[in-house]
């Protein structure tokens, strides 16, 4: 069972590596869009610092959204999805593998880049660890929730636009607690509670998203 999971993870990471440009799309968008903010709202450090956490989180949502389409669509089109459904292991486990591979090649990049972006937005020094910590807890949740949306719309035309409509409202709680965790620390109020809630949301998504995604994928193949 673990072997099947590892085989899938290995394949997806290798594919992500071969499609380098496509894989980095989210991360490049993240950095590029953020670089526009100092140009758009002016380079005044206190304005940037006040909106920084919110802007970084909103862009992280969009960056993950951008890469969601590749999660199941190509497997659906070339028939690999049929093989996964017919594999002698629970589909839920394979869905978990797909999400893990997706997060390693999208969310994790955002986490790693975030201290640099905090610097770009003139955030105070605490942000260099709070922001990555909050993103580390929040981005896997974004991938898992997005996986349900991507699976529901697999095979439909205009899937990616609809996925955004379907998934963005579900991202709101992550956004709220993610931003308030960072702001809490920056204002000296402490954001430990918010980080805990982000962690709880991740656990909840880990339990709920694989079975929901698997059910949606089975329906898509009928």
């Amino acid at each position, binding site marked *: 069972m673990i072997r099947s999971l590892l085989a899938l993870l290995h*394949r997806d990471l290798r*594919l992500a590596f071969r499609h380098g440009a496509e894989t980095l799309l989210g991360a490049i968008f993240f950095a590029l869009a953020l670089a526009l903010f100092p140009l758009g709202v002016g380079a005044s450090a206190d304005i940037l610092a006040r909106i920084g956490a919110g802007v970084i989180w909103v862009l992280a949502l969009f960056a993950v959204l951008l890469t969601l389409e590749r999660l199941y669509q190509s497997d659906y089109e*070339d*028939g690999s999805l*049929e093989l996964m*459904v017919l594999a*002698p292991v629970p589909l839920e486990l394979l869905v978990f593998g797909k999400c893990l591979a997706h997060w390693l090649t999208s969310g994790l990049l955002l986490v790693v880049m975030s201290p640099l972006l905090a610097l770009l937005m003139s955030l105070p020094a605490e942000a260099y660890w709070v922001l990555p910590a909050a993103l580390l807890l929040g981005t896997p949740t974004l991938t898992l929730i997005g996986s349900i949306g991507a699976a529901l719309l697999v095979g439909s035309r205009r899937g990616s636009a609809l996925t955004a409509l379907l998934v963005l409202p579900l991202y709101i709680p992550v956004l709220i607690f993610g931003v308030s965790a960072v702001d809490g620390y920056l204002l000296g109020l402490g954001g430990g509670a918010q980080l805990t809630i982000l962690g709880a949301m991740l656990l909840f998504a880990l339990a709920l998203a694989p079975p929901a995604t698997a059910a949606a994928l089975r329906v898509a193949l*009928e």
Partner: protein
Amino acid sequence: MSLFEARGLACRRAGRLVFDQLEFALEPGDGLILRGPNGSGKSSLLRLLAGLLRPSAGELRWAGGAFRADDPEHRARLHFVGHLDAGKANLTVRENLAFLAGLLGFAELREAALERFDLVALAELPVRYLSAGQKRRLALARLELAPRPLWLLDEPAVGLDATNRLHLEGLIADHRAAGGLCIVATHGDVSLPDALVLDFGGAAA
């Protein structure tokens, strides 16, 4: 008691009855050919037997015991080769097969899988450079990856040249000689000696 039996199977898709009251009983080593015009339900039956579709009525029995087609135990005893070849364009032939072997739970890829359809020379080539027939051979090579008693093949010879069609027929004959079952939807380009025939007729209403 037959090894694999279907009783009173019916399939409904998009509100339309594709077939009903479908019955067959297969003994070890049997072949079953599904024949009929396009849209008569051959692929639907194969997908139903693989557990990708749910029957609207009827039951399936393996060695006498009734089971649901989406039962994990059933998945572990079948190979399904559908219309899609399931090759990843940016992975080589070997990488694709190694992934499938891993997915089926094997640590190593058996070289026999590459040899049966002459894929050895193509092994290090990315799938995007393969022709339709070569991709088909890659899809069929998965039959060699793991021994499974039940093979469900949907027009397996599409795009194959004469030599590889013979390889396929040889592979099916070996499988049946070893007691395996093979259910094939075909328009007559694969021959299975002494196979039962299920005719879907022209009843595609």
